[in-house]
């Protein structure tokens, strides 16, 4: 392989799982670079990430939330001319064995975003009924705007082309970026596809999307999507 590949892991207080996540990616291939973006964690996530050899760690001086953290990774990748960028969570939810699947799907150079979807083969952790209901509504909205059915628009297990990363360096949502990302991508005529993956229920910690947050999430994503759909594509 002559492609430069980077896995970016946004991490906020992931000291329980971060080392395992990094090591398991390393066990797949030593060729892949790993970048942990420490979003101002208050535990020792940074030290633990650094303790695994050749892991690159970026420390954000203020807590910026998931969107800002991921975009930092994109900017790093763009500066260093990486060809394929994989994003995965630091909490152990994403099974590293699918990293290779994501990368392989990117290798033909035709795809810009590959989404790891847990709803294609319906194996592994499927999340609760209420959440799946919310996701169906999202799916419908995204279909209305992009005319593409995305089975798992909230999945954060994704691979990106350098072309996609370049666009997201200019513009990326602050919080809950995944569904909006698809819309920005489609507006910029990027090719988005999905492949099946399995996810585990997270090792530690809780989802940030629960209770009132989930209502905020739905409203925010839908409004953002609608606004995105009436915005010019180069914006």
């Amino acid at each position: 392989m002559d492609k430069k590949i980077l896995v970016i892991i946004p991490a906020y207080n992931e000291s329980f799982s971060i080392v395992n996540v990094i090591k398991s990616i390393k066990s797949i291939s030593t060729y892949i670079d790993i970048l942990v973006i420490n979003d101002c964690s208050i535990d020792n996530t940074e030290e633990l990430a650094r303790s695994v050899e050749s892991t690159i760690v970026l420390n954000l001086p203020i807590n910026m939330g998931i969107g800002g953290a991921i975009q930092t990774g994109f900017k790093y990748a763009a500066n260093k001319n990486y060809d394929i960028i994989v994003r995965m969570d630091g909490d152990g939810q994403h099974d590293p064995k699918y990293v290779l699947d994501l990368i392989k799907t990117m290798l033909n150079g035709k795809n810009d975003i590959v989404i790891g979807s847990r709803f294609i083969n319906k194996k592994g952790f499927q999340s609760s009924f209420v959440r799946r209901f919310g996701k169906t509504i999202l799916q419908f909205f995204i279909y209305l705007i992009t005319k593409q059915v995305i089975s798992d628009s909230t999945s954060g297990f994704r691979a990106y082309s350098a072309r996609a990363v370049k666009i997201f360096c200019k513009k990326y949502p602050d919080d809950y970026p995944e569904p909006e990302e698809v819309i920005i991508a489609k507006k910029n005529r990027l090719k988005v596809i999905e492949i099946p993956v399995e996810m585990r229920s997270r090792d530690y910690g809780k989802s940030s999307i629960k209770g009132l947050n989930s209502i905020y999430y739905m409203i925010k994503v839908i409004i953002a999507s609608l606004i995105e759909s009436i915005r010019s594509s180069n914006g």
Partner: protein
Amino acid sequence: MDKIQLIMICFSFVLLLFIIILTRFNRIKVQYSLIWLFSGSILLLFSVFRSLLDTMAQFVGIKYAPSLILLIVVFIGFILGIHLSIIISKLTEENRTLAQEIALFANRIEKLEKE
């Protein structure tokens, strides 16, 4: 002169004075004081020249003229609020870019120090 008119004149005057003092001592930047000074001046204008207010009120069909002042105040409040949201959004965006640049630079410095 109505009581309400007197109150409004005092209020507008104090508002203008307060903004000028804040700007003078750099608590508000000149570019952000402009919108306040403009709003304050409009209020003062309408409170002093009652006839202007009456004409305007008649024009928009408000029977009790001073309530037009209230409407104007609410209107100005909205504009100011939106103005501030725009500024906050801009600052948030700039803040984000700066934080990201710091993280990227820190990484480069670290690498240079190792060499």
